Each structure stands twice: as structure tokens, then as C-alpha cells.
């Protein structure tokens, strides 16, 4: 499916969830479409750690946390699925974006992109709720089940390469941290920082 259409659809449907994006295309495209600065943690240069980072966030909230990893990131650390299965967090939803290129480095071809069966790997790891979305129609049909039904879920998004370079979100790391952390505190999360912004 078309990558941008896929993300536009997800951005339209995932309005209440906490979002963690990975290096390259997922951060750049989510930013380009939404310009969101609070409920999204743009974990750029994360090298495969976006979903376990999201798992850490999900440990402390009942809200749904959605993580995006690229297929390049996934291949660096497929064992992440074993950790996620062990945690079995009911509010963690993990998407792998399979565009078969390294999107952050000028769409250089992914050497294993055509070989990998990400859903098969997830199944072999013992994950029960697995989705494999190759079309926008399929995504539209299955997304609510994946996101709304309680339980850890893993999904593959089969998309075409983006084919163009987008700028990174114009936020320095500490700004991402404070916007995101204060947002969580303000919307009912536990205190993140040692000192509240507005002491009672």
C-alpha cells in the first residue's frame, strides 16, 4: 500500500493513543502529517529500540501505546518480540513498517527485505495476535480489532518505499522529553519529573 496514505489513515484513526516513532521515515512522516508535539515520542536514531521503549511507557499507563519500527530496525533486534511476549502488555501495539528499504538513508535497498516473514517470526515467538496489512482496505478492516481489543498485538504494514526525503521533526531531544513527559503528567499519568510544573 502507499506509505503516505497508510500513515494518513493511521494518524486519522489513532487520535487518543500514545505514539512512539522510530528512526527515519516513521518519525518524519508522522511529523509531516500531524505536526504533533506532545503525545508522540519521536525516538529517532533508535536502532530497533522503539518498541521496547514504548513497552516501558506502557508499563505505567492504562492508555494504549502504539510503536512503529522500521524493517531495518526490526532485523537488527528481532529478539525484541520475545521480551514483548514475556511482558504481554495489554496496551502495547507494535507495527513493523516493511518498505524493504532503509528509508532514512535515501531508500537504499534492504538486503533482507524480500526474504523476511515478520508475521511468521512473531508467530514463532509465540505471539498470538498478529496482523499483516498489505492494503489500505485491509488495514481499515482490521485496525480497530488490533488497537481496541485488549492484548498485546503485532502487525506488519506492507508499504511501498516513500520515495522522497522528508525533514526530521524540528525538536531537540530535551524538548521532546519535556513536552511528552509533561503531557503524560497532565493527562493523568504518574509524575514523571521530580518536580511538578505547577505545584499545588
Amino acid at each position, binding site marked *: 500500500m502507499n506509505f503516505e496514505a497508510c500513515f494518513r489513515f493511521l494518524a486519522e484513526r489513532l487520535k487518543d493513543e500514545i505514539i512512539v516513532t522510530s528512526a527515519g521515515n516513521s518519525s518524519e512522516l508522522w511529523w509531516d502529517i500531524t505536526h504533533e508535539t506532545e503525545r508522540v515520542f519521536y525516538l529517532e536514531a533508535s536502532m530497533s*529500540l522503539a518498541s521496547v521503549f514504548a513497552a*516501558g511507557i506502557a508499563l505505567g499507563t492504562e492508555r494504549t501505546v502504539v510503536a512503529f519500527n522500521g524493517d531495518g530496525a526490526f532485523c537488527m533486534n528481532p529478539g525484541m518480540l520475545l*521480551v514483548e511476549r514475556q511482558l504481554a502488555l495489554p496496551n502495547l501495539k507494535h507495527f513493523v513498517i516493511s518498505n524493504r528499504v532503509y528509508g532514512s538513508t535515501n531508500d537504499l535497498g534492504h538486503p533482507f527485505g524480500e526474504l523476511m516473514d515478520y508475521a511468521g517470526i512473531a508467530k514463532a515467538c509465540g505471539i498470538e495476535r498478529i496482523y499483516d496489512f498489505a492494503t489500505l482496505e485491509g488495514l481499515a478492516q482490521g485496525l480497530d480489532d488490533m488497537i481496541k481489543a485488549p492484548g498485546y498485538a503485532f502487525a506488519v504494514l506492507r508499504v511501498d518505499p516513500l520515495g522522497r526525503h522528508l525533514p526530521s521533526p524540528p525538536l531537540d531531544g530535551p524538548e521532546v522529553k519535556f513536552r511528552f*513527559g509533561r503531557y*503524560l503528567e497532565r493527562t493523568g499519568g504518574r509524575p*514523571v519529573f521530580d518536580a511538578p510544573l505547577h505545584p499545588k
Partner: protein
Amino acid sequence: MSGNAADTASRRIVDVTADCGISLVASLPDGWITSLITHYSRDARFKHVAVNREESAIGLCSGAFFSGLGTFALMGASGFLTCIYAITKINYTYQIPLLIGITLRGRPGDRAKFHQSNGLYLQSVIQAIDIPLVTIEKADDIPRIGTAYNHSRTMSRPVVVGLTREVLRGEA
């Protein structure tokens, strides 16, 4: 080595980490910390997560900072050396505090030849990326783990506590 002495040392470390507010421990084993990991896994004050690789401990604990949990990433020296990218990219870029516990492998007395590279390079690497290192050389140093945790939160960067073989065996 006395098993009781190692147990006592592990219990002290576990108690100090609980007292300073840590409730999530992510670990990968090293032969020196199996007793300590076992204590964490059996202690109801903690959620213990056995991760697939040390970088996952860095990622999980860094995310959990935003869940308001105090966290401790526990690993061997060799595993720590695989985490330089994750630490410098995630924790330094976003200024996320994290307490990391490691074994001080490769010191004189460690007879494992495959750990001698840690003796040669571990502390140099730690210094090269400017992570404060708090060494726990004897049982009386164990409370410094709490100080290291608080320091990490104050400076919004990771702090490493280095555990010696003698402390972990209850011999110092």
C-alpha cells in the same frame, strides 16, 4: 565463597534499590550477578524483566522513565560495552536518567581470560562517554547505589554503578 554471604550481599543491594524508589529491574545475566538477579525476580517490590540483550534493558528502562517508575538496568561488563550507542543516542539525546549496574570484570583476581579485555578497556570507555561511575568496592559502599540513582535523576543522564566480585560474593 559462602552462599550465605553472597545472599546477604544481594539482599542488601536489593533493599537499597527498593528504598531509593526503584521498582523495575531489567537484566541480562553475568555469572557474578546470578544471585542478585534471582533475588530481584523473587522480590514482590520489583517487576523484573529478563531481556533478550542489554540494549533492550536500556530501551525498556528509558521508556519506563515516562511511566514514572524508578528503574535499574543490570548487566555484565561485556553487555554494557554493547550499549554505548543506545546510551549515547537515547539517554544523552533526550536527557533521560538511568541507573545501570554492571560487573567490574577483568580486574586482578578475575581468572576468566575472556573478560580481560574489560579490565583493559571498560573504565576507559566509561570515561570516554562521560558517564559517572560509582564503584561499590565493599559492603559499606552499597548505600552509594541510592546516591548514584538520585544523581542520575539530578543530572538527567545515566550513572553506572560498578559491582566488584568481592562485594557480590559477600567477601568485602
